[in-house]
């Protein structure tokens, strides 16, 4: 039997279909994952995302029930609708995972992120930074004659906007917590 007439580089040259089936719309989703706070649980969740090629835009985790040793992981991820469904199913079958909620589709929710901004400068720039901080309801949590540290809470978009404004005014350093989110209502 002779070789197959297949164009070089065609997918059939591979043991796998190399064509990407996902040329669809990509959306951002905020997932809340309730887990047992046991050793390695975060590695398990992160490993799932990296191992299966999912994105993590933001991740926060802390124990929220000290008696029951439960942690809440809030993860913002992107993907097509099918990928998001797959991420939720994959998370759901991990043994230490109790619940997975997709706050983006399950109804209205509030999202907040906390950030600290260090801005150094003097003269007019320093005054302008303080004025903008006031507009954004950022608090000054540290101050020297040459610098401020602002604390700001809000949606990721608000924090992005504040960062843009601070950049020309002497922005030195930023620390962000990532998104924490809860469904609205009872």
């Amino acid at each position, binding site marked *: 039997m002779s070789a197959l007439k297949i164009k070089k580089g065609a997918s059939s040259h591979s043991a796998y*279909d190399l064509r990407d089936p996902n040329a669809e719309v990509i959306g951002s989703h905020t997932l809340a994952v309730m887990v047992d706070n046991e050793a*390695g649980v975060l*590695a398990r969740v992160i490993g799932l995302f990296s191992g299966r090629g999912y994105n993590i835009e933001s991740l926060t985790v802390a124990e929220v029930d000290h008696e029951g040793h439960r942690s809440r992981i809030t993860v913002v991820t992107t993907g097509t609708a099918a990928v998001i469904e797959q991420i939720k199913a994959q998370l759901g079958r991990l043994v230490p995972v109790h619940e997975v909620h997709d706050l983006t589709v399950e109804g209205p929710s509030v999202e907040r992120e906390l950030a600290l901004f260090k801005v150094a400068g003097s003269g007019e720039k320093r005054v302008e930074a303080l004025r903008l901080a006031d507009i954004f309801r950022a608090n000054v949590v540290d101050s020297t004659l040459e610098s401020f540290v602002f604390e700001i809470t809000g949606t990721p978009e608000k924090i992005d906007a504040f960062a843009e404004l601070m950049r020309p005014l002497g922005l030195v350093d930023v620390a962000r917590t990532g998104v924490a989110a809860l469904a609205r209502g009872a």
Partner: protein
Amino acid sequence: MSRQMTGAKMVVQALKDQGVDVVFGYPGGAVLPIYDEIFQQNDIRHILVRHEQGAVHMAEGYARSTGKPGVVLVTSGPGATNAVTGLTDALMDSIPIVCLTGQVPTFMIGTDGFQEADTVGITRPCTKHNWLVKDTSKLADTIHQAFHVATKGRPGPVLIDIPKDVQFATGTYTAPREAKVNHYQPKVKGDLAKITELVALMEKAERPVFYTGGGVINSGPGASLLLRELADATGFPVTSTLMGLGAYPASGKNWIGMLGMHGLYEANLAMHGCDLMINLGARFDDRITGRIPDFSPKSKKAHVDIDPSSINKVIHVDIPITGDVGHVLEDLIKVWKSRGRKVNKDGLAKWWGQIEQWKLKRCLSYKNSDKIIKPQYALQRLEELTKGRDRYITTEVGQHQMWAAQFLGFDAPNRWMTSGGLGTMGYGFPASIGVQVAHPDALVINVAGEASWLMNMQEMGTATQFRTPVKQFILNNERLGMVRQWQQLLHGERYSHSWSESLPDFVKLAEAFGWKGIQCKDPKDLDDAIMDMIDFDGPVLFDCLVEKHENCFPMIPSGKPHNEMLLGDASTEGAIQAGGAVLV
């Protein structure tokens, strides 16, 4: 009823309480206390392997042929890392395995101690779940949880890493029924509304097909019985994945053969042309679907799977049913009967007419020879000479594996063990030992290729030591046959490193380990040689020299839809008659 004991004693006690009768393992520094306890009891048999990968594959063979979890005990560091391939294999094929590993003492973890490896880190992605136990008082509880997780829901491998100081320390033993019930309780009952929706489609379907997988076998023998009842009552054709062979009998009237890349023409065309596909415990693997946009384009699809993440992962389905195949089939049959056992008789008659047409292609035909043994012929003879017996078949990975799936018939579940998902060369031989340990009087045959077989040949000593009379049926083409086939068809016949150079004299090798060695190269001698193999009371290495350049057909090239499958030389050259004569 709690008792004080050392961690090492707890391990043995917990295994006993879980009903474990055999452990596959290899000792080392970090598991010595457990081995000391094993030495002082007679309830649990220990099979000393020659390499930790072999231990896991043996446990897989044991698990798949019994339905019980397989247990592995290995040491820290290299013991654990050697087990990784087996664990990954078990994860891909959903085989329940409980693997116990030793670890350096807790106070040494993280210091790069002798034979230290981050075992839970390394095995996290290749186990269903794993635990590092740092406190003896939690050890028994963890072991009981491990058995629960390994066997409930979609089965899989779990690992418990036990530091040496935890084995030495004393704690309170927890019995299985006192163990904390894990919140891990996968749903087994399917949604009745969805099941009813499926029944409604089944009543009208003109061209239905059952596409069954390993999930039917994992669900237990009851699920296979229910599948048979439903298929026979509805008259729907049944095809199966590599993993699901035996759930519906190969001799059953609705059987249309295995599907997939090297599946039967009629099975693949039935999948492509059906109007209702009922997936029971299979997962739309890429070896099954071919090109996804062209996969069974005109069908409504239902998918029953205990793992919600399998549903809509690759193929979007119209009726997703999360649940255990056995439970869902039970409800499905109940609903279908209560609605009057309706099927579309006219549609089905036409559909079977079409399937019979496809069967006329005789897609498995090949050109036989009276001078050289064709691998297909060897398997046909093996089938003929062994089929009535209490027989278990394992395989390695490659052409021989596909031919075995095509030419051997399985009438019962748990009789066919092969590495499907991971495709692990070197699986079959140790797996055959594991099967034989569980079924000492059965005929256990590993259908192998010479290249795969050499990957775990060190287990010959294990077979000799534990008197497991496993039969190694090697189809020796002195090639990595499947690789060679791809190179021939797709890489310009450039056979890069796909031949087996410097092969041993298999007969002498057999004798060196106290086995019987048989070599056969003439088709005329084959039957007698196979009978010699079967009749010998002990392990046999059967070196069957076969045609070196035979290709495995039918074949769906990757990225092609089901209706563009390649048939063999025999059919393309109009030689069906010659090959067909052999099949009669």
